């Protein structure tokens, strides 16, 4: 069985054994320690490693065999060259042909030229390079300029949409995780161990250009037809971003950080490293063409319309002698192609060859599925029957989109155990081939494969899981009385099971987490599975957060359809299948929840946009409103008209900040409201809130529920009382500030405004930024002062203590 969180202990073991058996040893003397060949080499129980290698190395391209073996081996096709294939740079071609394992550790391509001596080899490499360049032409598309922001996007995409399920991550997961492991004790990033367990990328910066790589990423199936590299449904911009990131060594530009607000940096054009311009010499190219046939390159690599057969002599598959002295299975072949295989891999192939007659028989459906899943590396993301799923270190790269609180179900691709029993065949095909997506919250994208690649997979799932599928005998929709569709709607809504508490519905947000859209269910699921799943969700999806509404088989809603589980589930199914015409479930659409002050003030403490996480909104019946910031201890916002819409915080989990509902919103000066300034030139202090010694102390409501805010700083107590005054058009505010101190305080100022322009008016008031008039009632001869400081116009009001008290009144008219 497979868990939602695939048992980490078994995966750790799997990874460890994989490393031990494949990667920890030097492949060949004198070579760099190479990654073993592809993830296909992971020793998976139930998948014959030798058979898998025979397919992934496409041994039968040279060693001809019967169709049955061919079908069973599901061989990997090599990339075509020339038209349809990738354009490779001459410098890369040369070094790759010269020493494939050094240039691209982990490559499945054998070294065909190893037996040649120095000058001979150089000549062969030269000829093949000219030939291959001739096939596609070296004339490249326009070089692109590096763009820091695109590289940054590419870096995120590469690490989040699934590339690193097969390829090596280039940075520690902690750099990307919106949440997966959270805490910083993830295992230290060991790129080498990732690389050794990954499909190699090789030296891309030397191999290709941004436009080439980008178009490959957009449509990998044309350059790699057997679908080991699937399509991730990239948009053009995304493909370019990833290409630019992977080829970043071609640019001197550094990757922009998300916070960098510098304009995107236009650097020099990005060109392949170790640049070489090659003018095709037709004579050499012709010699290359002959070598391409005689060395057997042509057995694997198609050349588009240029049909060519390999002339390399190779024994038929049936006649292969695994123990022959000069064979491609040997660690040191003389003339035969040399493969970068570990001793275990060689042994696995030998043992498979020893029983090769088995390969003529078709695999059982479940083994066939496991075999294809191993070849396509579906196991990198999905577990099935206890096999596979992301390894612990790779799992850290799987994330949710945004902040959806969905746990591992939101970020780890689902298990495929019993998927043939669960999903309708047409949905299975849609997911594999036609961009069918049910989990938009998951950052990892379901890749798209070629029909050739996965055609058999769909059938295999259905056949392999048939034992349970056959139970799908429940009546179809039509058997449900039309009346019951209405009960289905009620059950889905807040008066029933309230499925919409968590699930999206016809792309409407749920009331809580964004779990899968319910209107997809009947398109995706088999009805029988749906029935069984609802009765006991965790039995079919261990660890799911989906609760059971039928504990011990009894419905928790006895008041609907007499509590009959069968009828209730049928009604749900019938409704979900017709939800378009049957209407939205009750409770889904949440309207505005406007808070209205009638004859008393209304207080609203919440996350208020512009007034902080401890905002205190006050709506006055006169239709003026304020928001006080209890962290910063300042009047933060004033506005007129409607007070606030509470719907955001009173629906679902209430996330996010809500701003004023009305109009004429004025942001009051940020920072500390009071300060002691020792001289006329003293700057207004930058610290505010608790750091500046301010402390919230509460509020006192008057008879009309209007608060007097109480706070303190520097042993001075402040009472801050705002009332609204009806006006001809809109209401204004009158704010009384009273301060108390045991000891008189000198040079204390209240900053009434900080903006761009303050204009004194004839009536003694001040027009601030042309939009709000401030007028003060001060004791004695004190007068407000306007000054320019730090590039701002400030309106400072002196606080003059008379004994232990000081007071002022500020009128705000706007």
């Amino acid at each position, binding site marked *: 069985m497979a868990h939602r969180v695939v048992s980490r202990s078994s995966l750790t073991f799997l990874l460890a054994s994989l490393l031990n058996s494949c990667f920890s040893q030097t492949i060949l003397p004198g070579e760099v320690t190479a990654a073993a060949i592809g993830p296909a080499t992971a020793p998976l129980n139930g998948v014959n490693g030798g058979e898998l290698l025979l397919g992934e190395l496409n041994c039968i391209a040279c060693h001809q065999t019967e169709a049955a073996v061919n079908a069973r081996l599901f061989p990997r096709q090599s990339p075509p060259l020339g038209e349809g294939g990738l354009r490779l740079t001459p410098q890369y071609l040369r070094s790759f042909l010269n020493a494939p394992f050094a240039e691209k550790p982990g490559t499945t391509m054998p070294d065909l030229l190893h037996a040649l001596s120095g000058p001979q080899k150089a000549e062969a490499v030269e000829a093949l390079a000219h030939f291959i360049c001739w096939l596609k032409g070296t004339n490249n598309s326009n070089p692109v300029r590096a763009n820091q922001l695109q590289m940054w996007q590419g870096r995120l995409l590469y690490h989040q949409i699934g590339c690193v399920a097969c390829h090596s991550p280039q940075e520690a997961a902690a750099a990307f995780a919106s949440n997966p492991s959270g805490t910083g004790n993830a295992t230290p990033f060991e790129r080498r161990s990732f690389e050794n367990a990954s499909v190699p990328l090789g030296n891309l910066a030397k191999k290709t250009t941004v436009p080439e790589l980008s178009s490959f990423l957009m449509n990998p199936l044309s350059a790699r037809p057997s679908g080991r590299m699937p399509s991730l449904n990239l948009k053009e911009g995304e493909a370019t971003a990833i290409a630019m990131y992977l080829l970043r060594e071609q640019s001197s530009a550094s990757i922009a950080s998300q916070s960098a607000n510098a304009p995107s940096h236009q650097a020099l054009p990005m060109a392949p490293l170790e640049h070489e311009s090659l003018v095709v010499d037709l004579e050499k190219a012709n010699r290359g063409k002959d070598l391409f046939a005689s060395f057997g390159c042509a057995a694997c690599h198609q050349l588009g319309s240029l049909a060519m057969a390999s002339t390399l002599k190779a024994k038929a598959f049936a006649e292969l002698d695994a123990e022959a002295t000069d064979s491609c299975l040997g660690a040191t072949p003389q003339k035969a192609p040399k493969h970068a295989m570990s001793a275990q891999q060689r042994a696995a192939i030998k043992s498979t060859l020893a029983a090769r007659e088995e390969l003529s028989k078709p695999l059982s459906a479940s083994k066939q599925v496991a075999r294809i899943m191993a070849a396509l590396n579906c196991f990198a993301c999905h577990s099935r029957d206890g096999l596979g799923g992301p390894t612990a270190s790779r799992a850290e790269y799987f994330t949710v989109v945004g902040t959806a609180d969905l746990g*591992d179900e939101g970020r780890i691709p689902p298990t495929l155990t019993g998927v043939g029993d669960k999903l309708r065949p047409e949905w299975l095909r849609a997911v594999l081939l036609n961009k069918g997506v049910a989990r938009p919250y998951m950052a990892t994208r379901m890749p798209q494969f070629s029909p050739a690649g996965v055609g058999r997979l769909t059938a295999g799932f259905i056949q392999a899981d048939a034992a349970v599928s056959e139970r799908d005998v429940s009546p179809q929709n039509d058997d449900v009385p039309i009346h019951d569709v209405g009960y289905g709607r009620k059950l889905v809504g807040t008066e029933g099971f309230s499925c919409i508490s968590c699930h999206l519905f016809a792309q409407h947000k749920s009331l*809580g987490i964004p779990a899968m859209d319910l209107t997809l269910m009947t398109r995706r699921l088999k009805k029988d599975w749906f029935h069984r799943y609802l009765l006991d969700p965790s039995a079919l999806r261990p660890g799911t957060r989906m609760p059971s509404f039928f504990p011990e088989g009894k419905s928790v809603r006895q008041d609907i359809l007499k509590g009959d589980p069968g009828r209730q589930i049928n009604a749900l199914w019938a409704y979900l299948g017709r939800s378009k015409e049957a209407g939205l479930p009750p*409770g889904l659409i949440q309207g505005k929840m406007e808070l209205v002050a009638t004859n008393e003030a209304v207080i*609203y403490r919440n996350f208020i946009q512009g007034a902080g996480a401890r905002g205190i909104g006050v709506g006055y019946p006169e239709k003026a409103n304020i928001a006080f910031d209890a962290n910063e201890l300042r009047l933060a916002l004033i506005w007129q008209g409607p007070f606030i819409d509470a719907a955001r915080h009173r629906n679902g989990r209430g*996330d996010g900040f809500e701003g004023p509902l009305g109009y004429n919103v004025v942001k009051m000066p940020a920072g500390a409201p009071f300060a002691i300034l020792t001289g006329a030139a003293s700057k207004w202090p930058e610290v505010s809130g608790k750091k500046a010694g301010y402390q919230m102390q509460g509020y*006192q409501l008057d008879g009309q529920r209007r608060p007097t805010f109480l706070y303190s700083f520097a042993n001075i107590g402040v009472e801050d009382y705002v009332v609204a005054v009806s006006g001809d058009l809109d209401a204004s505010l009158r704010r009384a500030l009273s301060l108390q101190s045991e000891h008189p305080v000198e040079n204390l100022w209240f900053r009434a405004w900080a903006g761009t322009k303050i204009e004194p008016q004839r009536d003694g008031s001040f027009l601030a930024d042309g939009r709000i008039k401030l007028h003060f009632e001060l004791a004695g001869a004190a007068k407000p002062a306007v000054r320019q400081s730090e590039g701002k116009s400030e309106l400072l009001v002196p606080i003059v203590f008379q004994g232990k008290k000081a007071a002022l009144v500020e009128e705000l008219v706007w």
Partner: protein
Amino acid sequence: MDPSAKTGWGGGVDLFPEVHGEAIVKQSESCPRPARFATRPVTAAFKSLAALPSALFLQGGLVLAVAFAGCLVSNVKAANQPSAEDQYYQIITIPIPSGIILEAGALQLLPDGKLASATRLGDIYLIEGAFENPPAHVKFHHFASGLHEVLGLAYRDGWLYCAQRGEVTRMKDVDGDGRADRFETVNDDWGISGDYHEYAFGSHFDKDGNIWLALCLTGSFTSETDYRGWCLRITPEGKMLPTCSGLRSPGGIGTNYLGDMFFTDNQGPWNGACSLKHLAPGDFEGHPDGNKWFKLTEALGPRPTTPQSGSRMFVEAKKIPQLKPPAVYFPYPKMGQSASGLASDYTRGKFGPFTNQLFVGDQTHSTVMRVYMEKIKGRYQGACFMFKQGFDSGNLALEMAPGGVLFVQGTDRGCGARGGKAFALQRLVWTGQVPFEVHEMRAQPDGFEVSFTEPVDPATAGSPESYKMESYTYIYQASYGSPEVDKTTPMVKKVTVSRDGLRVRLTVEGLEEGHIHELDMSGVRSGKGQPLLHKTAYYTLNSIPEE
């Protein structure tokens, strides 16, 4: 000892000399007392915006325009079926006037017999007649509004204290109009960034007059502002004492019968399943991200080392002295999916046979679970049992009243619940009949001792065949939750039934330290031939006692 002293507000002691109004309590099941708060009932009628297209103006203050009639479902008839449990414990639903959205919240019984009920929308109601049976004359007095998601209430010296998201506040009705008008910030020495996950649960007063706060992390995974993921104590003087780190997503906080503080934490990162955790100053409760705030305080000594993700709790606890494994796990989803509020039965029998045990809510399953704990090697551990299913909404706040009445207030907003109603206030009362249940379950060096609420049938209870045991634990890891792992099947080798038939001694081969031991007692019958009302026990065996 006087158990009532542990309930926070002083049990049966009348602490309120001042009297502002007359209580209108009739047929109470418990302690009618003069009202401290002279309150006035909500008189406004509610109409939904489904009927009226614009804002509604309600008499008497707060006006709420609501377009969501489904939220106000107090008129929907009870959905829940009668069950075998009803014979022993009955749920009584307190009618909520239309217009009031009573999403739990927090509960605090007041000395005058009223029940204070706080809501997620920031209202506090004082409920009169909450004990009445049937609850025909219940009155809701709107005492306060506009507060920020109140998840804790406590009462002392004429002040009602509440835990808002960003501060502990105390309030009082000074002008005597029945509504609080003086709100004082008692303490706000922790951070809040604006993430919905940053809940603050508050306890009643402990025996020293402190309120304990359990602060949720910023999101599921991280602590982004001061003391997120900590337990703090607020002293009677309003000082904040950093107390424990390592909290993730608490669902409730409260004391056991001895006054020791516990909270429930929820399945997620570093929490394989929901659990009940003990809070003693200096404890590290398992989620390491909040440990960054050790830089703000030296009160708890050095910062605990960070546990190894992918390990097991009991393995890491041996390496990290401050790390305290959960006292009781609630296996997911067998017992529940969102552990919430808790209350201890200090009523000495008024709530049935489970004196001194803890009752813990589950929001998703709309249930109340039962917990028996003992101390082994100085630390709490014990077993949980299903207790009562079929509440109307997602149970969040639990409050035990001295007469043996368990109040349960629920909400399902943002987190679906089986109950199906958006909110509910219900009372769980004992019918006087004793169910055949496991009473206590104690670990022994070589097995367990299980006691029962009535004598067992010696033949079935004495046979090892009647018991099946499985053990498992969880991966202690940074990613979300965990499957049950490291499963074993310890064997019940021998059973000895006590002479009075009330206890069995199970000799078990293969006890696993650090594992949950799930004991299925399907075969056991009472002397009257009855099977157990709840046949499964889940014992969290952090330590195996020594001989």
